[in-house]
């Protein structure tokens, strides 16, 4: 079954930068991000949609990059954990995870950050329940989730403060 190597040149946008890669079109987005674009922030936990470690934004929508064939992101804006900070200024969610101890081994952290950013974009005053629902697709083997939820609560406060200051 190896008659066609079936590599294609595909153009992608990752964190606002145009990239050209030569890959099989069914390659998982996570593999292209890590191996071809050399952005290793996105992690693989399960490879089957259960753990959320591989979460990224496609056109602003959170998806599991282990389930997306790269052919489906041609022409979309893709954002990984590396794209959350604004230059040297970390995103409020990143700041809060550091301050509140929301990360231990760090494998789940990129996905947690993406999911939390998505939540706070639509709701900057989430209840604990809303936070737990928003993060239900992100598994953590280390923290017991308490510090993660606290980080998101703190991040929401930061986000509101930033908005207040900007207004």
């Amino acid at each position: 079954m190896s008659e066609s190597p079936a590599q294609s040149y595909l153009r992608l946008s990752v964190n606002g930068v145009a990239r050209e890669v030569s890959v099989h079109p069914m390659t998982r987005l996570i593999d292209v991000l890590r191996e071809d674009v050399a952005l290793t922030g996105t992690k693989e936990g399960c490879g089957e949609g259960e753990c959320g470690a591989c979460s990224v934004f496609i056109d602003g929508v959170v998806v599991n990059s282990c389930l997306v064939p790269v052919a489906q992101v041609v022409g979309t804006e893709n954002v990984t954990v590396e794209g959350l900070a604004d230059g040297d200024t970390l995103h409020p969610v990143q700041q809060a995870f550091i301050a509140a101890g929301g990360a231990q081994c760090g494998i789940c952290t990129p996905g947690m950050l993406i999911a939390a950013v998505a939540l706070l974009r639509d709701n900057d005053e989430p209840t604990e329940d809303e936070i737990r629902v928003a993060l239900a697709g992100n598994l953590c083997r280390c923290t017991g989730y308490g510090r993660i939820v606290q980080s998101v609560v703190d991040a929401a406060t930061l986000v509101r403060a930033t908005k207040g200051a900007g207004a």
Partner: protein
Amino acid sequence: MRGIVSDHELTSPSTLQETLALLSDDPGEVRPIAGGTDVMVELAAGVLRHRRWVNIWQHDELRGIGVGEDTITVRALTTYSEVRAHDVLSREFPMLGQAAAESGAWAIQNRGTIGGNIVNASPAADTPPALLVYDAKLILLSSRGERVVPYRDFHTGYKQMQREPDELLSGVVLPRDPWLVGPDSRALQRYRKVGTRKAQAISKVCLAALGVVEQGKVVVFRLAFGSVAAVPLACTAAEAVAVGSAADATLADRVAAALTGQVLPLDDVRSTARYRARVAENLAREFATDLANGLTGFAR
């Protein structure tokens, strides 16, 4: 063992016509991939048997929800998140909204589609029981044209369905019967998913049901289950027993007795046949009792 990507082929035609042509060239050789939340899991597990795939995600004409006077059409690429976010759909067809809300976590809901859930044809899938109860129709599209199949006739055996290999599912049509689903409806609607945890868990049993009682008589009774048979199951025997009969204290017993021939669950990794049969019976009894007691509206 993980599947090898280069064992497969994936084409992304820019037009729907090209996709339909590809599907009809050599029917059955090429299969569609939509959100990939079933297909890519099979690829990862090394159990993806089909070699050639056609990407349909870029075909925007297969996306979106159309509200007509008498029907709502949910096109095949509509995601769970889009179903949840749609006002009219989630108000009039709350069981579908509930099924969407309980399918996977957000990242899955953002990518998994209604069309994929139906054609993947898992007996444990969560939207089929709701679609059976709403008496949905499916629109199947090929280069030969379009045809409509009642959803109740669609699943014919385990992963067997009335879809020709060259056909795409293009949409699901829901009848807006004002009597059943409108603001003036007198119906009781219920959707219950029983799983191991709230998020991400595949159902052990799932029930969708709708009933109307008028002047002490059951005039509409629709009941469907996931995970209790080889297909998403409409319990036609129980429906026949209930309709036209008295909405009294014996309704639950009569409905439960009629389940036995059709509710034939299996033991598997997620649960046992005995547990499933018992839960299905309890859920059906509870619904029949509430209906007989005059409850209306939507309840989980």
